[in-house]
């Protein structure tokens, strides 16, 4: 079932005013079954089918309430969503507080398929729902549909809610050309703490024992082949060579941002330092996960035209 007013506000507390409930097709078939058993009972003057048909009618009337109970009193609020990439499946966190046991809850964000039914005990629950953001930026995940048919599938009870907390969506990484702005002379952050002062470039200058986080790119393969153990190359390059990435000229901005996204991930993976210039925003060269996240966030929030 997918109609009804989409509720706003955070948190959303489900109750009489924002829950919808109608019989399912199975519920109508159930009523037909009751009718059939009534005919059998009357014709055979038999108590068995008569009691069973009344029992099924009782269940029908009862599950109207039980299905409603599943969602009634449920409090939903948005969690703090982590960043994700456009066009990829990302996880949107939700905090649910159930007043009582909540059976057969199905959640569905946007046009995705509803997930499997789950039963929640009374108390707080943190759930993550997958969805695919179509574009970058601070994106709200669309309409959340909370739906249940438990306990017998005779009724479907649902509510629609627009979670207000947006999720940061980074342009999807895509290989392609990126531009480079004029390099700066001032030393970058990481270099100041480095004993050598300058790191980066193509030629490695030193070796250190290989750590798993160094990755395969920095492994000294020749030494390893010679049986001298796993070592990681340390690169040192002139500071002036730390690139200041900028959207490539001549291609649409959105596409250029996707290229930048891929370039930042690549440079981060190589352990290189880099900076970013997006119109008026400039992020000086640096490295490390914090730096990378700052750059990606700038990409996500870049104005539509620079």
């Amino acid at each position, binding site marked *: 079932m997918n109609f009804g007013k989409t509720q706003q506000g955070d948190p959303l507390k489900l109750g009489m005013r924002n829950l919808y409930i109608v019989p399912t097709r199975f519920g109508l078939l159930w009523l037909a079954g009751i009718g059939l058993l009534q005919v059998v009972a009357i014709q055979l003057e038999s*108590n068995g089918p008569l009691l069973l048909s009344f029992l099924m009618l009782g269940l029908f009337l009862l599950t109207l309430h039980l299905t409603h109970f599943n969602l009634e009193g449920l409090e939903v609020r948005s969690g703090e969503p982590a*960043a994700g990439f456009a066009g990829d499946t990302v996880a949107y966190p939700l905090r649910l507080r159930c007043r009582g046991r909540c059976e057969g809850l199905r959640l569905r964000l946007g046009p995705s398929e509803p997930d*499997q039914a789950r*039963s929640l005990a009374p108390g707080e629950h943190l759930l993550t729902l997958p969805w695919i953001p179509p574009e970058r930026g601070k994106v709200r995940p669309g309409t959340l549909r909370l739906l249940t048919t438990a306990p017998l599938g005779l009724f479907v009870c649902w509510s629609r809610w627009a979670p207000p907390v947006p999720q940061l969506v980074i342009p999807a990484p895509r290989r392609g050309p990126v531009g480079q702005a004029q390099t700066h002379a001032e030393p970058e952050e990481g270099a100041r703490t480095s004993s050598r002062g300058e790191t980066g470039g193509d030629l490695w200058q030193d070796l250190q024992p290989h750590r798993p986080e160094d990755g395969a790119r920095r492994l000294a393969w020749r030494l390893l082949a010679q049986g001298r153990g796993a070592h990681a190359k340390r690169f040192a390059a002139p500071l002036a060579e730390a690139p200041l990435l900028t959207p490539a000229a001549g291609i649409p901005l959105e596409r250029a941002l996707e290229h930048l996204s891929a370039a930042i991930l690549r440079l981060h993976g190589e352990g290189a330092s880099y900076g970013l210039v997006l119109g008026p925003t400039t992020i000086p060269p640096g490295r490390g996960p914090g730096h990378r*996240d700052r750059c990606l966030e700038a990409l996500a929030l870049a104005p539509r035209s620079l």
Partner: protein
Amino acid sequence: MIDRPPSSASRIRQRRPASAPESTSSKARLLQWLAEALLIVGLLGLQPTLMLSWVAIGLTLLAGLKLLEAKRLAERRLVGLLQLVCAGVLGGLQADLGPSLLQGLAVFLALAGLLALEAGQGPDWRLLLRRSLQVLMSALPVALALFVLMPRLAPFAPLSDLGQGGAQMGLSESLAPGNIASLAANEEAAARVSFEGDQPPEAADRYWRVLVHDRFDGESWQTSPTQPKTAPGTAPAPTGRGFSKAQQLWVAEASGLKAVPWDGSTLPLGRELRINGRGELLHSGRASQRRFYGLRPGQGMDGGWRRIPLRPTDLILPAGMNPQLEALGRSWREAAPAAARLALAETWFRSRPFRYNRSPGTLPARAPLDAFLFERQEGFCGHYASAFSALMRAAGVPARVVSGYQGGTWVQPLAGAGYLDLRQDNAHAWSEVWVEAEGWRRVDPSTWIAPGRGGGLRAAQGRGAAGWLERQWWALDLAWGRWWLGFDREGQEALLQRLLGERRNLVGALVLAAVSGGLGISVSVLGWLRRRPEGDPPRRELERALAALARRGVIPEAGETLGGFSARLEQSEPELGALLRAVAEPYQLWRYGKGARPAREAQLLSASLRRHRRELERALRRQPRRRPTP
């Protein structure tokens, strides 16, 4: 803000839940298969000559096939519904205690399967079964209110008479004792009857008539095919079976005969019963299945069938078939009233050396009764009844042979009403002669020969534990029949009459009130059960304390421990914080302490926690309504 490195995007993709919303729980599958198996077992007892049996078989097979191939939720739901309908149809065909239990279990399993389908993979077996029982029990008040109070309709079309099923053992429409060399001992059950107030008739009066053989061909006694009209004054009760009024409640095993045992003086209850002019009680139900029926007191009418005028066939005796017998009968014709000829016959039998013998050997094909009366002079009840009846016809007294059961074993079960147990061994034949001003009188010549044979009560002898168990089960079955089949349209009418009296127009309001009352109670109980905290008693006290705080907006922060929460609360609200600590600390010590946790300790702890929790609630009530989160 970005707490997940973007390089983990690939990992997010992997963690995407397997998008299979339609895949259904394995518990549901198991439950549905169990229900299906029970239904198939139930099918075994059906009579294949019935059309409705085939409907039940078809529905059950359909449900089974659907279950085999169903993958989607909607299809599996359909299986559940089909199974419920099957159980209902089976219930209409077989209402005995055993099948009813089977059907009830199948209904429960089918419902549990539907519940498991909706609940997904989550809940465990105990939770699932408990929930199923809860839902079923909550629907019962409404169902029972409707069942008891909802006025019932009459059948749309009269029940079709589906004819006689396969031949069953027991009595036969033709009685030719001369052809039977020996009566085999037969302990098969024939019928059971319970009496109002546990008062069975005197042993000498325990004659349960079934068939009347009124045509004699010189060798065997037959039941004439043309049935005399229904006896006057023996019309069944106008509606329903009304077992509540029954003086005798019978269960007759399948016999292949339309005629069922009765005592000849009561009146039938229910439209399916009819007494014909010969004094046979005919049941329109399926003769190939067990039949339940009730008889009400005859109110001194003693069965109108006894006085139905004679028919010429009641005197026919083929001449020359048994010449000695005919000559003896003719010699008694001088005695004027029929009663006097009867006395002559009794004297004659008593003065001859007749012996009762269950294995007398066969009689010659020519003049068999002559051979019995004047040469062999030994035989069983069939011999005496047929020879005596033929003699009376020869003497000019209308006579006929009746076959049925005599005696029976009184069984007093551990619980419930006692009943008289009739076995095929109790089969008996006796005579009826027409006496002016009295009508048909029962005469049992066997009692002249072997007084111990007539009315002799067999002790409820063993056949071991199995026999004992069987008798207990039959007592339950009979009680079930009285209670379950007894509540029919007439029983309901009587109940409504008692409840409403003259204000029958209020029946709609009564049904509505009962249904909404039942529904209201069930919904509130289930709502309370749902909100009740889960876990052991100390845990429930803790949850209640936290819930009381949460109602005032005092909520632990994400990741905060219980100790941290009470410490934080203590800073802003010293009183509340201290009270929460008084609940939280003993609980944590008990929960996470080393060693076993005896039940007694849990009890003491929850009592003390309850005290503190109530104090906390009182303190909260004293606080003003506004409550910022500390």
